[in-house]
């Protein structure tokens, strides 16, 4: 027995020594993994992220948590101005369309380099656009979703035609037709510029399918941009992403040496971490927590609402909804103001149209439809739909910035509908567990959904909802106005003159609200971001596109 014990002890000691000998600390001499002095402070801004980043190549990303990280590393030709939805200079300082709006000339900013030392010039910009347009079938089907959606596909179908470097610092971008989306859509995080050297060496376009997911190349793990921060590491075992200040940044250097994103999927844990000072902030605090967070000394920054919550209607599934009087009656039944007051956070407003008031083309003469029970009942009677039954759906297992509490909102609207004699069959399904599928496949008569704008363009709202006649959730192809609406949206989108285009959108908003009524705009709800009392310099963005380079923590 003694011999066995001794042998075990010797073996264990040998094992420990071997492991110990193999294991050297990889810490740097300064004992930190953080930034290296420079002009800014040496602080760390720690942000609670709600999910893991999809991929660090923003071109293949589509979710807010990824873009929040890549936005600190990359910049686009044009950028959203801090605190607004307007576009302003980015890597391009000026831009000008030709007469018919199909060729855009961008003048690039001098003296900008990518963080790997590569020069940012016209050639680099065109290398990026050519790379984005040239995707394999796998990427086209899924990961390059933003391009497929915003640039309307690939190859001949695409809005994008070519990129030409006319001199070292001038780029001509040619598009297939004029569109109101240009150049605003270039501010999308997906279309940020990456180092051409990193793209090439990292085989950026080699996306492959693996089982029921996608596998990304080296470039997606080592992103290189021109932004105020550079990618340091993604510690997957500890669920943190660390960025380090780019001391060679062309503009004002970032105030903090490091940003750490801690991935904390549960919202109440994010709040507890904030209260324990383990993180400095997190996004989209639940509106019911706003007051408590402020009472605890935190700063709840409420952004202007850049979203819309609507009630969709499906006239193909429920033929009674093909009658305008029925759709109008449903609109008159809803007490939008009451629901907003009872269920949505401070700053939320009832909606009169399918876009927020900051978007060019918003019709300020329209007012939210006021509730009129008697008129609703009489319209239903006129339409012979007094016995109207609606399968009205809402999602579970989710909150959205425009819909903080789907069930409560649904309950309030259901009560309104029942008061005018409509029989409501409530249906709920998990967001990713059948709800979005159900909406897409036309399984509900009515449903709650919404949209947060990608950029400041009326087309990004109504074009998304009703532009494509053949495939939209509202099934407008089953109505007598669907084709005309789709055509009018296209015409407005292709109008080059800005004033004329704005007037067309204003008119369209009026027609959608009063004449077509394909669905019912409900409300605009402001999302918030919260930071603790030590944080200064955060500029909240209506697009939830905050840049953290201006943030200081504890005065550092």
């Amino acid at each position, binding site marked *: 027995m003694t011999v066995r014990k001794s042998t075990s002890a010797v073996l264990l000691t040998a094992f420990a020594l071997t492991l110990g000998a193999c294991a050297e600390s990889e810490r740097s001499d300064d004992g930190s993994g953080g930034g290296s002095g420079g002009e800014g402070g040496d602080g760390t801004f720690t942000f609670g992220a709600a999910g893991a980043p999809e991929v660090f190549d923003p071109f293949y990303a589509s979710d807010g948590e990824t873009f929040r990280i890549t936005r600190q590393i990359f910049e686009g030709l044009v950028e959203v101005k801090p605190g607004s939805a307007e576009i302003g200079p980015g890597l391009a300082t000026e831009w000008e369309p030709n007469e018919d709006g199909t060729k855009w000339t961008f003048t690039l900013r001098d003296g900008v380099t990518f963080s790997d030392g590569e020069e940012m010039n016209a050639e680099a910009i065109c290398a990026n656009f050519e790379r984005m347009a040239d995707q394999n079938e796998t990427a086209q089907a899924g990961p390059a*979703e933003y391009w497929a959606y915003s640039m309307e596909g690939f190859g001949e179908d695409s809005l994008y035609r070519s990129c030409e470097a006319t001199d070292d610092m001038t780029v001509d971008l040619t598009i297939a037709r004029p569109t109101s989306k240009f150049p605003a859509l270039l501010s999308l995080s997906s279309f940020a510029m990456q180092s051409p050297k990193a793209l090439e060496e990292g085989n950026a376009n080699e996306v492959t399918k693996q089982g029921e997911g996608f596998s990304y190349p080296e470039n997606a793990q080592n992103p290189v941009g021109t932004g105020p921060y550079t990618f340091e590491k993604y510690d997957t075992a500890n669920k943190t992403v660390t960025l380090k200040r780019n001391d060679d940044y062309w503009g004002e250097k970032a105030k903090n040496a490091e940003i750490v994103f801690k991935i904390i999927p549960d919202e109440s844990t994010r709040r507890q971490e904030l209260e324990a000072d383990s993180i400095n902030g997190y996004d989209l605090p639940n509106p019911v927590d706003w007051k408590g967070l402020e009472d605890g000394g935190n700063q709840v920054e409420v952004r202007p609402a850049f979203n819309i919550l609507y009630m969709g209607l499906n006239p193909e599934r429920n033929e009674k909804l093909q009658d305008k009087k029925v759709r109008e009656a449903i609109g008159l039944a809803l007490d939008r103001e009451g629901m907003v007051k009872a269920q949505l956070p401070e700053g939320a407003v009832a909606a009169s149209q399918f876009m927020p008031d900051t978007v060019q083309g918003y019709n300020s003469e329209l007012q939210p439809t006021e509730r009129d029970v008697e008129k609703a009942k009489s319209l239903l009677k006129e339409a012979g739909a007094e016995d109207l039954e609606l399968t009205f759906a809402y999602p579970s297992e989710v909150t959205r910035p425009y819909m903080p509490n789907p069930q409560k909102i649904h309950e309030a609207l259901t009560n309104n509908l029942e008061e005018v004699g409509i029989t409501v069959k409530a249906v709920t399904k998990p967001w990713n567990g059948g709800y979005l599928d159900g909406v897409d496949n036309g399984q509900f008569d009515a449903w709650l959904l919404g949209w947060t704008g990608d950029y400041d363009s009326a087309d990004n709202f109504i074009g998304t909802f009703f532009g494509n006649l053949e495939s939209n959730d509202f099934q407008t192809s089953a109505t007598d106005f669907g084709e005309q609406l789709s055509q009018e949206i296209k015409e407005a989108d292709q109008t080059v003159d800005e004033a004329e285009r704005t007037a067309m959108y204003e008119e369209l908003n009026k027609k959608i609200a009063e004449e077509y009524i394909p669905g019912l705009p409900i409300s605009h709800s402001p999302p918030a971001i919260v930071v603790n009392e030590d944080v200064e310099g955060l500029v909240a963005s209506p697009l939830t596109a905050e840049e953290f380079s201006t943030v200081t923590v504890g005065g550092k």
Partner: protein
Amino acid sequence: MLRFIVRRLLQLVLVIFALSVLLFAWLKSLPGGTVSAMLGERATPESREALTKELGLDQPIPVQYWSFLKRAVQGDFGVSNGVQPGTPALDLLLERFPATIELSISALLVAVLLALPLGYLAARRRGGILDNVAIVGSLVGVAVPVFFLAFLLKYWFAIELGWMPVSGRQEVGNATRVTGFFVLDGLLTREWDASLDALKHLVLPAIALASIPFAMIFRITRASVLDVLDEDFVRTARSKGLTSRVIRGRHIMRNALLPVITAIGLQTGLLLGGAILTETVFNFPGIGNALSEGFTKRDYPVLQVIILAAAGVYVLVNLVVDILYAVVDPRVRTR
């Protein structure tokens, strides 16, 4: 013995295969899924169709299963598309498993180190204050749901008192990774702060997770010791004048341990169930945490690899228990 082990290993393969069929069928029967999760509000019927086709989800279920099986036997379980998008599911499992093992071992250590001496003492002082207090404690351990205890511990010790971290596995951002076991890594690399930090993050989740195994092991130890105390051989040992240490160690505990070992084995397998809840409450990045997130995000590759691995571990742990049983009780070997 060797034949016994081989037979059990073959059974393991069959169990995993049968489970993989059931699991695949179940996941495929769920509404929604990968395509919805990937495309979100932006989905159009065209983009949905294109992605469905590209991922092969338009194929009949048996074809999809065959394709999965062919890849799985080569170690390719697909790529995560929700929990950690782009990471191979197997890599994610291997990366997260050390966290769960570290937590489970800590919880088991807490449970065993408390339950064995307490169980013994409670049996020796049957009906006394210690016995009654320990019984009530063990009842609470069984009755209080793990997630509730986890919430309570977090609220008191992390949020109210601020003694322990609220969540996560480590605050030190520049710790060197060697084995994936953070406490051990800190010791091996002599990064003491990293090791201590990881240990602090383990305390509350380990206590929460230990509650059920503690209760079960305590109760079985107590009952088993009570049985053995009345045995003739204990009386004989006493009459021979052996020291109480020898009687306790060699005669009472050794015999009483047999059912206790079985209980520890069973509890080890069951720890995973508790780990899902505990890891979720403490945002502790183990496989339990990945499993709950994977379900919310419909990350089927991650769900498949974790559930299959968990089943494999459960069967293996029971095999080890059976072997240990034979080691502790030589009579078992001869049967």
